[in-house]
């Protein structure tokens, strides 16, 4: 074989009828997504263009961007959006920093107990968000486990204000999201040949340089998958900010819920939901492009 032929790689042979088999395989999932995801979103979007008239029948058919204008002109709402983005970015960054070493160890361990390690990482996901948040409440409360221990040991005199603050929410969401980050990274790191790291070492790269030049670029697909998952989950967190943040702390998902159920304001709720979705998608795509462009250099 010539070099040129090798460079083109293996030739993919296609048999007749393969296209139909593939179509048959993806049809059920496609139908499900179309009816259960795209259709509701479309309807929601239509709702968000309606008018809300509390004195009449709540939702009045219309074609107006008033709900979107209301959101972006009222600092109350834009602050909530800013808080949500800030917390999601912070949570994602912390998950990446905490998750990478953990994922690396899990991916590289030769231990017989590797499967136990993986289960222990996934274990938190067995507990629902609401149940877990309730658990955090007992830990973070002024007389909770955390403060009681520190005060008992004489480390502090006054209880630390954690419960019903941003701190509690951030810690809570990190705890929920970390497994997603670790699993995304671990599966990719596992596919990186260990000897590639050793090759870098033998060529004179100290560990930090090896990480920057070899491990990080090769782990990038996992980093992207992990940050996207974590970021999207954090942007849309509901139970954790609701239960740990208390009545004064606001994030987007509880706000949407509140508009639908408490205020019965479907048009405005729909608009907020749509803004949340768009911002999440936009920021995710932007981060994606930036990271990939950087890696290409």
């Amino acid at each position, binding site marked *: *074989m010539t*070099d040129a032929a*090798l*460079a083109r*790689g293996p030739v993919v042979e296609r048999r007749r009828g393969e296209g139909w088999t593939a179509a048959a395989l993806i049809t059920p999932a496609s139908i499900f997504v179309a009816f259960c995801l795209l259709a509701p979103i479309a309807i929601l979007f239509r709702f968000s263009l309606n008018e809300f008239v509390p004195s009449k029948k709540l939702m009045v058919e219309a074609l107006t961007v008033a709900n979107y204008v209301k959101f972006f002109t009222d600092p109350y709402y834009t602050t909530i959006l800013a808080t949500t983005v800030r917390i999601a970015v912070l949570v994602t960054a912390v998950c990446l920093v905490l998750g990478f070493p953990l994922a690396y160890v899990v991916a590289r361990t030769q231990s017989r107990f590797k499967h136990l390690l993986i289960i222990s990482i996934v274990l938190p996901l067995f507990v629902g968000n609401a149940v877990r948040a309730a658990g955090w409440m007992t830990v973070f409360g002024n007389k909770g486990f955390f403060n009681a221990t520190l005060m008992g040991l004489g480390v502090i005199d006054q209880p630390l204000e954690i419960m019903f603050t941003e701190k509690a929410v951030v810690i809570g969401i990190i705890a929920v999201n970390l497994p997603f980050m670790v699993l995304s990274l671990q599966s990719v790191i596992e596919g990186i*040949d260990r*000897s*590639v790291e*050793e*090759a*870098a*070492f*033998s*060529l*004179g*790269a*100290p560990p930090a*340089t*090896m990480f920057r*030049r*070899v491990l990080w*670029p*090769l782990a990038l697909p996992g980093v992207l998958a992990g940050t996207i998952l974590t970021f999207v989950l954090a942007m849309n967190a509901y139970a954790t900010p609701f239960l740990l943040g208390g009545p004064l702390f606001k994030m987007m998902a509880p706000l949407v819920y509140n508009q639908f159920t408490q205020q019965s304001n479907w048009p405005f709720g729909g608009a907020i939901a749509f803004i949340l979705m768009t911002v999440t998608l936009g920021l995710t795509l932007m981060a994606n492009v930036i990271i990939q462009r950087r*890696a290409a250099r």
Partner: protein
Amino acid sequence: MARLDLEKLSKRYGDFFAVRDVSLQIADGEFLVLLGPSGCGKTTTLRMVAGFIEPSDGAVRLGGSDVTVLPPWKRNAGMVFQSYALFPHLSVAQNVAFGLEMRKLPRADIERRVEEALALVRLTGFGGRLPRQLSGGQQQRVALARALAIRPDVLLLDEPLSNLDAKLRQEVRVEIRELQRQLGLTTVMVTHDQEEALTMADRLVVMNEGAVRQVGSQRDLYERPADRFVAGFVGRSTFLDGAVEAPGRFRTDGGLALACAGGMPGRAALALRPERVEIAPSANTNMSGLDNSLPGTVEFVSYLGALIDIHVRLSPQDRLVVQIANRDGGFAPDVGQPVQVGWPAAAGLVFNE
């Protein structure tokens, strides 16, 4: 390039010795091959030289300075891995440049040395490709160029040819060997393939169960194996189990009385190289020049092309492999055919138990 000394190198995992008391002196420019079955400790030894494994005991000296506890990135050892371990996200030129960038050479020097290294492995013009766009043999050569570009004190090869197909392997063997001679590289290679070891090495080290069994030239190992393991591992031997009755007299468990050279009285094995045994059809039994001449029956024949292996049953307990050249008008054995085999006493090596 530099000389490499291993002094009583050991690696222990709990009670298990992966490598035990390995001492070797590798001269400047020498090509040393560590040969042994998998799990014999050869790779562990190489990885201790590279710095990936910290020895439990002993020392590694490279060019006279002790590098035993030095991390791999401070050792200046060029390594070629079994899987090549090319950086898949970097081009061929970037792969080769990696070690030079770590040494903070000026850009122009790096470019020149990358070109040199690629020319050395006949890959000029391939610098812009990604590793996955190359064939296995080309990837192997990039790995070699990358290791050579840093001008290492010692070149370490970890089963570098095992992922190549048989035909290519023979070519690359010669290529690596010529390059090594031309550049005067102190080289340590690990392999389980004895043919590879025999064709490439200046000197061979046979290892088993973590220990060195014999060090020597190809001829030393083949003609004068130190023990039964080496006799069986380097080249091929048929072992006849039995006992030495008196110096020069060996009796197999099957009851055959054989003449042998030396040996202490007691349980022993008699090792015979298949090609040192003569064979003839039974009718023609003139083997008068040989110390041993025995009748037997052909039990199995394997045709290897240039050579033919004939398994001959001598007694219910004793079976011998005889290898003959496949020549025109030569002996063509049939299974079940009665034959006569013979060999001089000196051809049989006695290993006491």
